[in-house]
């Protein structure tokens, strides 16, 4: 297929990750946002954003793994 699948995956995870990270950052310290004591939205959002950006970088590099 001529569409590199890493584009949609990279875009989706970047958008979702950014959304979660920003939400996690804004609600930092509010009650109920960290049931386990860790601001998971912020951290996991950043991890997803990093994954998304890595996929996009791979797609730009054009080399299929």
């Amino acid at each position, binding site marked *: *297929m*001529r*569409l590199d*699948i890493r584009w*949609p*995956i990279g*875009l*989706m*995870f970047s*958008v*979702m990750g950014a*959304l*979660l990270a920003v*939400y*996690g950052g804004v*609600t930092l310290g509010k009650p*109920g*946002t*960290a*049931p*386990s004591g*860790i601001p*998971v*939205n912020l951290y*996991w*959002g950043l*991890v*997803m954003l990093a*994954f998304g950006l890595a996929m996009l970088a791979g797609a730009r590099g054009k080399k*299929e*793994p």
Partner: protein
Amino acid sequence: MTHFTSLHWIDYAVMLVYFAFVLGIGVALKRYVRTGTDFFLSGRSLPAWVTGLAFISANLGAQEVIGMGASGAKYGIATSHFYWVGAIPAMVFVGVLMMPFYYGSRARSVPEYLKLRFDEKTRGFNAISFATMTVFSSGISLYAMGKLLNLLVGWSFDTSILIAAGIVLFYTFMGGLGGAIYNEVLQFFLIVFGFAPLAFLGLRDVGGWSGLKERLATVATANGFGEGAYTHSWTYMGHASQNPVGVEWFGLVMGLGFVLSFGYWCTDFLVVQRAMAANSMSAARRTPLIAAFPKMLMPFIVILPGMLALVVGPAPRAPGNLSAAPAAVAAPAEATRASNPANAAVEAMVRTPVQQPIIEQSRGIIPPKIDPATGEPLRDGRGRLVLDYDLATPMMLVHFFPAGLLGLGLTALLASFMSGMAGNVTAFNTVWTYDIYQSYIRPGQPDHHYLQMGRFATVAGVAISLAAAYVAASFNNIMDMLQLVFAFVNAPLFATFALGMFWKRATGHGAFLGLLSGTLAAAVHHGLTLPAGAHVGIKGGYFGVLQTFPSELAQTFWTAIVAFTTCFLVTIVVSMLTKPRPDEEMKGLVYSLTPIQKDSGEPWHRRPAALGAVVLVAALALNLIFW
């Protein structure tokens, strides 16, 4: 309406992002679908890592995510046998040894391979049973998903299944197999990202693996097993009575590891179709091998949350000190009356600690199962609460994820459901169009006619799934019965394929009669046996009870062993008595008449045999670590 939690705008936002991307992929791929090959086989154009991830994702349906979590809570780490014994060896086998025939024969489907190798009646038998099975199993998982979402977040059953089925229909209709595969890869990553934090947060809560072991030891001894019965996969497999699975090692290895596992991974078109979409023989052979790596790590994402659900939460509390009740329990406390049995589960969970001075389940967040007749929690023979294990993983989501991450977790659940359903739908439309419509109804039409039929079959497949979901909702027993019949049909399949691929003397009559008698043998064996504690009926024993098995799984494994052996022997005997096919007709279809694949010039990670060896060593290591 009573439910466990409610969603926040951020949860819906995450879900909408996902919906936008899956639908967008369908739109983007539509322009690449011009011929039947594009639609049904994705133009045989995909790289191995894409088909590999789709291979595992199509199998990673919601029933797997929920069911393996449930088994994790029921059986502990022994559930990993479904992966390290019941999947990996078969995946290596299909990649290294069987894919040359599937891909090399240019068959467009698994039933079509049977036609090329054996004859029309063998193909017809397999095509019809497979097509029926796929639409009904996607209907059953639709039903399960609708019920679960209703219970968890209070969505209406109708709306949830219509939206989910509508989205799957859209992208499989537009993009064909390519649309399904692209989304499966996306869904695979989403499932991993959605569920991975669950295992992490849960383990952190109980004090890591050693903490989990300690707490599960208490559960094990309370249930009458040795301390490590929930945290060792092999140590307690010597005898069925020593482990919560109720199976001994021989039945496990032969029934699950050999017959059922090879029967599924090596012959089920749902997964094989993904490999057939690969862009070369080498990529097709590496598809299941690449899939094997994430597959063997899946237990940490899907089984571990179930095990954790049994023991997370505060330490055993003194009667009367109810303030430490899990957050999930406190949330719907305002609800007063159960309007239906499903809601009663929530109700019971809210009420149980209050009404009973002695807390039976001092830890864990799995609610009890509700008797639909009385609305009261079910109790077993010894008066202990029976837990609703299917809620293990969903309760973990609700318990550990705040708004935001909860949206991600539910989206992952939806993604797993959709990947499974799309897998079923794309396998159905191909088998229907090529193996039933083109073969028996209207042969000899131009390609675009079959492309249109494929699109129509996609709509029809989704429609039948929806209908099946409603049938399942009103007559649960019909679905149980159908699944039982499918299990009988599937059990002997691997014998037919193994003999077909590796013994050139096997004939069409032999294969067909072998399959038929294998299916029959499965039904007879099931009808003559019963799992301990079950009643005669759907669970077996309808021809009289000759033998009792310690558990339902043990019965299932032995039924499969009997079916396989019967099919194997009958195929050989009938083949010897019937006329063999001339060798030249079977070139590329049988091992001894096909040139061996040469890949010695390639680096090791592109050579199927070398890659397969690495996979097997890794799976062996995992078995030893959790022995």
